């Protein structure tokens, strides 16, 4: 348990010192009585605050997932196991004050829903939750780290965004793009053709069969899905920009999945995350919630051979230049996403886009000024 002076405590300590200096010139030492009284308040505060913090048992939900801008929906449980009331209880997380309890009576158990709104994505382990109290006088604050199991994960908020034009198109049922070929399955009816050996009886188009007298089967437009490789490569430092980049990656990735593209995400955490079209974006968001900005040297061979590359970062990094050159040599499409206001070197012929906190604001094709 850690006990430290609050700002008010420091103020009154300075006041005590001032009074002590004044008592030097005073005829009587009665000021020392007043100093002693204030000092007594410090001691009482120290004792009561520590007792309040020591006496409480906290129960936290093991795993909570929520999106940026939301507050948790699972209640926390606070139990006062001592024989004295605990006052002025604050439960603090990294993101701020989870909740505040004016008093927990002895033997009482309270369930309380945190009102804290998590504005930033990330992982908030319960082990870092601290319980503190400065009651009754606010001069001294006692804090205890709770070391609770479990964690709270805040996923990046996803906004509407268009994924970059995909490459490496491949047949995928439900894919957004249509190929030139006709296939037996699909959603877009293209016409009929004579029956061939191997065709299923279910594919027979009975109306045209009746009309022509031969067995005719239905054909559909070929549905294609592309491949998108995202490299999230942010420079550490500017946390807000990193969050914006993660949000952009989440939005682009989610949009790509929903359009039926294969998606792979490379970040410094190690193994790339590869997701099939139309798969749940939860895994992607979880990965992005845990993302921590760090150096991640990437080479083109790490990515799918045929895919659109999207590099998302907080500022231009020289390590991207070789990647860009290799991509151009292989005639692959490369997109670079940067925060609004960040520029690219003039000699680089890539498609670029800019993002803000809540949207992709600008697309610029290759050779655009």
């Amino acid at each position, binding site marked *: 348990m850690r006990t430290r002076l609050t700002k008010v405590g420091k103020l009154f300590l300075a006041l005590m010192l001032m009074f002590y200096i004044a008592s030097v010139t005073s005829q009587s030492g009665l000021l020392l009585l007043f100093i*002693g009284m204030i000092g007594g308040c410090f001691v009482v505060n120290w004792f009561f605050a520590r007792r309040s913090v020591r006496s409480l048992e906290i129960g936290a939900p093991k795993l909570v997932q929520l999106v940026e801008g939301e507050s948790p929906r699972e209640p926390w449980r606070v139990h006062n196991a001592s024989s004295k009331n605990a006052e002025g209880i604050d439960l603090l997380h990294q993101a701020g004050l989870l909740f505040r309890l004016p008093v927990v009576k002895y033997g009482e158990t309270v369930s309380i829903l945190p009102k804290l709104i998590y504005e930033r994505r990330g992982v908030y382990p319960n082990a870092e939750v601290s319980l503190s109290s400065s009651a009754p006088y606010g001069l001294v604050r006692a804090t205890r780290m709770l070391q609770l199991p479990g964690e709270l994960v805040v996923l990046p908020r996803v906004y509407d965004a268009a994924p970059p034009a995909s490459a490496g198109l491949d047949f995928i049922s439900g894919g957004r793009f249509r190929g030139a070929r006709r296939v037996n399955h699909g959603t877009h009816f293209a016409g009929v053709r004579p029956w061939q050996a191997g065709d299923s009886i279910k594919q027979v188009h009975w109306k045209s069969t009746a009309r022509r007298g031969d067995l005719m089967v239905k054909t559909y437009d070929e549905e294609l899905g592309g491949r998108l490789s995202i490299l999230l490569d942010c420079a550490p430092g500017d946390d807000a920009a990193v969050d914006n980049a993660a949000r952009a990656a989440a939005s682009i990735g989610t949009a790509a999945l929903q359009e039926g593209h294969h998606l792979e995400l490379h970040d410094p955490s190690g193994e790339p995350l590869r997701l099939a079209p139309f798969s749940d974006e939860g895994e992607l968001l979880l990965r992005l919630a845990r993302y921590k900005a760090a150096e991640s040297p990437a080479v083109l061979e790490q990515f799918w051979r045929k895919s659109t590359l999207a590099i998302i970062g907080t500022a231009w990094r020289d390590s991207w230049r070789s990647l860009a050159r290799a991509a151009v040599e292989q005639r692959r499409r490369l997109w670079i996403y940067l925060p609004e206001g960040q520029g690219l070197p003039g000699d680089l012929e890539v498609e670029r886009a800019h993002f803000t906190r809540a949207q992709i604001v600008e697309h610029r094709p290759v050779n655009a000024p």
Partner: protein
Amino acid sequence: MTNPRHLFILLGFLAQGLTWDNYPFLALAAGLWCLAAGPFAGRLKTTLTTEAIALVAGCAFSVLISRATGRSAHFFLGDGLILLQLVRMTRPLARREKLTALVIAAFHFAVLCTLAPNIRFLVLFLSAIFFFPAALKETLSETALAAPERLARGIRLFPSFRVAFWLVLGSAFAFVTFPRFTGTPFQLREGLGDQGSLLDTILDPRRGGRANSQQVLLQVEGDHVGYLRAFALTETDGVVWRTNPKAPLMRLPYYADSEVQGNPRYRHRRVFVKNALFLGKMLPVDGRPVSIKRNFFEWPFENKFSGALECGSMWTTGNNIYDYWVDTQAAPLPLSPEVHRHLLYHPPQSARLKQWLAETARLGTNDVQKARLVELNLRNQFTYKLGTPDLNRLEPVDDLIFNRKEGHCERFAAAMALFLRMQGIPSRVVVGYVATTRNIFTGRAQVRFRDAHSWTEGYFPGQGWVTFDATPGPPPGGGGSDFLDFLEAVDFAWYSHVVNFNGFAQKELMARSIRMFGSVPASFWNGLVWMLAGALALAILSRLGAIDLKRWKKEAGQRKDRLRARHYYEEMLHALEKDGWNKAPQQTPFEFLESLRAQAPHAYTDAATVTQHFCRSHYGEKSLSPEEQMQARLAVARLKQEAETRHATDPIAERSRA
């Protein structure tokens, strides 16, 4: 008005109000506080500009009033802050503003600590013990203890008596142990010598206004305390009497303690001085001491001209005391020719005055008798009055004798001294005190400011210095009461032991404590060392995990709870036994309870409560909460009472019991 912050602010107002040394301002500040905390609380909308104007206006008002009333204007800022606090009380404050208000009130209270070290301080301090922590808590409650919830859940703002007790202990600890700089050798070197005696401001009301002040200055132990002379005026130009600053100082005789203590020839006095500052460098004594014991001044010297005892330096200690012994059979001291000549000087007086003097002293057969006749004439034919207008500066004594015929003691003493000198008798005007009352609780003669007096001494060969008190009427005095005596005794004790507790007193206390510890046998210290070593070892083992003190404490608590629950259960069985229901040895508690359900339904509910608590604690090893203990206690009390009632009224139960 029950807001503790407002109450602490009121204490600050009262503390600041005491700097005015009168009550109207105090009442005004309290009245304004009532308005601000009552009907106007939180209703006005004031801006920072309004508050700044209030502060400046308060300061300006204070300076103007101080100039008009002759009060020191040093406290103008404190007065201005009162107005600021009042204005701020009329609007809701943010937490930071509340803290500012609290700090200002603390500064006001600090003024009280330095300027009003009397019993009034104690009253306000005890109030502050409750109001200050409550005000701090109220300030915190805006955030951590949200106000509506606080009220709903009944959080108390004011500290309990137990907390207040600890705060008082903390104050006392700081007071006794904090190093202090008052009463250090530095202060001893400086002394209080240049400040002179406060008697100057007492005798003439126009110069200080302390005449008739009830404040006790010193207390004297001993019978028949006479005129306590402080100093004497020996130089005159016919208009004003002054001390002689160039008068040489002589060493006092020193008799060994063993010679004077317990010897009836030497009259003993013990003097308790409330505040050494009031004495200046002069030591009030009734007689010429031959031995002095003291704790707050250096060895005094005797002024050759005035006979006053002057100290090189004087300081203040925890309890300012001096003892002195006066030789009751001492031979009169001879007067040196130089002093004799000096004490005879007087400017020529008018023929009319000479004639009046000769006429008055006509019937005297010797110098002493003649002087006594003049003294009697002045006492009987003139009137004592304070605050009379100035006398004619050319012939002041003529003006007093023939025209005014009234004045205060200093005028008559000066006239008497002049008359003695006109008759060839060396004389001087003595200034000091005449104790008129005794405190019934301490038995000491009390000297107040109002007891300051002036009289005359004349030197007669063979008799030495003879005292003449020419002031008409009885010495000024007032009635008292037992209650006032009690208050004065408390006030004096407070002053002696608390207000005067300075560096010297602290060192003395420490030295005494060390002496006390030194007298404790060595075996005690050895035992203490072993005990501390044991406690340290226990703490280390507990820290290392070898001993689980917490578990041990918890188990001890559970054992205590089990014992308590068993006690209640046995009490219950005893009460039921009285009622004729015995628990069979083979019955379990719940079996016995079930048997009661059918046979004694009236006792079932209470018995069930006690049995459940007993089983839960005894077999389930659960702790009993205070509420549960209370429930069990009440249930047992009810069962006992019921058994008593039935026992008194039911003869069958009586028989079965028999």
